[in-house]
């Protein structure tokens, strides 16, 4: 019963013929290593389909890939500081449109808690519309601001001020979208760096409108 494994003959517990091997036939050796990385295939694969549709889809695919890299949804990894500041890097930076999601559809915790409320929850519409249309009137904007004021009941005066500041600055820069973008991006970059520094977090709570704002509703006193 211990199975006479010796003598070089394997003994099977079942009738080998049932599975199709005749007695004494040479069976393939036991494989003791992992299969090769690129095994030879006996047969060539079926050739790819070609046709107008397939070609079009191919071109589309490659185009989409490139386009996606340029959308604001493609978030680049922030590179580490280089030892030498390369001159060419400045000119190879791709300026992307800033995308601001519709905050109404997202959980509140998604809104970046900025000290600078300008880069924060500004409506996406404002940005989009502001880009495409022609330069807006300052008068128009002031009218809007008045409307805003009327509607704002329980709002902090802080936010109002910043709103005004924000939209004013926006309209002034109006046409010059690139600058706007760069400015916003730069501000945001500054933001990120600022946030990592605890010191600034706890002792300074201001926006870019430092000095221009009233400090009425600040939670902490500035020392």
């Amino acid at each position, binding site marked *: 019963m211990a199975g006479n494994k010796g003598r070089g003959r394997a003994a099977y517990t*079942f*009738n080998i013929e*049932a*599975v*199709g*091997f005749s007695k004494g036939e040479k069976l393939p050796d036991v494989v003791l290593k992992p299969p090769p990385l690129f095994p030879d295939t006996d*047969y060539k*694969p*079926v050739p*790819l*389909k*070609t046709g107008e*549709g*397939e070609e*079009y*889809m*191919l071109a*589309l*695919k*490659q185009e*989409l*890939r490139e*386009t*996606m890299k340029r959308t604001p*949804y*493609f*978030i680049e*990894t922030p590179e580490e500081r280089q030892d030498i500041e390369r001159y060419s890097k400045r000119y190879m930076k791709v300026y992307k449109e800033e995308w601001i*999601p*519709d*905050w*109404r*559809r*997202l*959980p*509140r*915790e*998604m*809104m970046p808690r900025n000290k600078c409320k300008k880069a924060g929850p*500004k*409506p996406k*519409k*404002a940005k*989009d*519309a*502001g880009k*495409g*249309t022609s330069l807006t009137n300052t008068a*128009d*904007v002031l009218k*809007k601001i008045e*409307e*805003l004021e009327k*509607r704002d009941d329980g709002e902090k005066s802080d936010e109002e001020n910043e709103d005004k500041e924000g*939209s004013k600055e*926006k*309209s002034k820069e*109006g046409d010059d979208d690139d600058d706007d973008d760069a400015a916003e991006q730069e501000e945001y970059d500054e933001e*990120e760096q600022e*946030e990592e520094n605890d010191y600034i977090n706890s002792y300074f709570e201001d926006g870019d409108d430092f000095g221009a704002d009233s400090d009425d509703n600040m939670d902490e006193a500035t020392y």
Partner: protein
Amino acid sequence: MTQAEIKLCSLLLQEHFGEIVEKIGVHLIRTGSQPLRVIAHDTGTSLDQVKKALCVLIQHNLVSYQVHKRGVVEYEAQCSRVLRMLRYPRYIYTTKTLYSDTGELIVEELLLNGKLTMSAVVKKVADRLTETMEDGKTMDYAEVSNTFVRLADTHFVQRCPSVPTTENSDPGPPPPAPTLVINEKDMYLVPKLSLIGKGKRRRSSDEDAAGEPKAKRPKHTTDNKEPIPDDGIYWQANLDRFHQHFRDQAIVSAVANRMDQTSSEIVRTMLRMSEITTSSSAPFTQPLSSNEIFRSLPVGYNISKQVLDQYLTLLADDPLEFVGKSGDSGGGMYVISILTTCHLLSSFLSRFGSRCARIFRLVLQKKHLEQKQVEDFAMIPAKEAKDMLYKMLSENFMSLQEIPKTPDHAPSRTFYLYTVNILSAARMLLHRCYKSIANLIERRQFETKENKRLLEKSQRVEAIIASMQATGAEEAQLQEIEEMITAPERQQLETLKRNVNKLDASEIQVDETIFLLESYH
């Protein structure tokens, strides 16, 4: 989610959205639903970046959120939706064939941006189309809107769930996250806008009430003259509808292959008639009377009613049961899966050889076969048959079924039958497909990275040439610049381009396979 799927998702996210989004996305796919802080902690990324990444993912319908008790919001990723990104070119191309360039661009914008309001879509598409038109001509918003409405009517685009309206203003503190709702009948309701051509004032006549904000912020106004009329009403591409379309196409072509053109037209008509009435996962279409079919046949086909009846009978009698009589007048959806799976598996098995394919088809047909019977029926010498059977067995395409003759299951007195379990074989094949696409993508990225220097050089040279041509340079100068790329380099570029194209094309086709296999579940 299998490892292969996760790997593929990771590659796709990285290619389309960058590494940060990829990290967050893959983490969510692996671990299921999690709140914000836990994500940040586990992935080691700053809270700010996690927020940005989540915003992007939510915008593209890849991640959804839910408010749990005690106000904790948890985020969950949809792995299958991420895998759909492979199919974007196919969706766009299909729309092109159905609705021409305008429709194509609409769907493309929707897919690229996740979700958009109708006015935003119309504007973007009109701008893009105008760019391709001759100088002086502009694309009218009205035409784009019309195409949009047609897409909505045929359900290719649908509305996203929106923030529910509140009657009174802010009853206490708003919840941590809005719960988005969508009414079934509103899903394809297009807001009444009349957007007038490029550059002119945009007038809005009516607006739909949905989408009033519940936010504490005042209603934001734009720098523009009026607020956008369909603010808050977002649209997205309806992928299920596309899938239904693909499935119908597959059925029709299968019928055409098996029978003739006319019968495929009949089936196509039947399917089109039940397009909107049948949900995409139903096994059978609604019963259609032959009169209805007769009336709906396309104009060019003047076959008499009798002939139509004959065709229908023929289809109904076909052993593959595409069409069944009365009670179940469209078994097509179920059958197509079986049919195409066999087809696929056979062609896959051509990797193992046509004889393997023969054996496979045989076992499939006869359900269970013994070793000896396989040899006999397939007319293949015993040794080869054995070899192939075991190969297929080891790859899990076949399985063994034991039938004991005696109660003690003694192996020497048991029948061993080979059988094919389609479902598991399909699943295995699907798994392999995912792996192969992941391999294809990796290889493509590798090839591109290897030749990065060369690619950049050629891009620079092209840019130089283009700018020189614009400023009117001489032929000799252009020649000189072109020679900056040496001949062997040029050849290298050619090879690279060919390889990348082949890899891309393979990706697209493997995805077709994936589609068929997935619809089998």
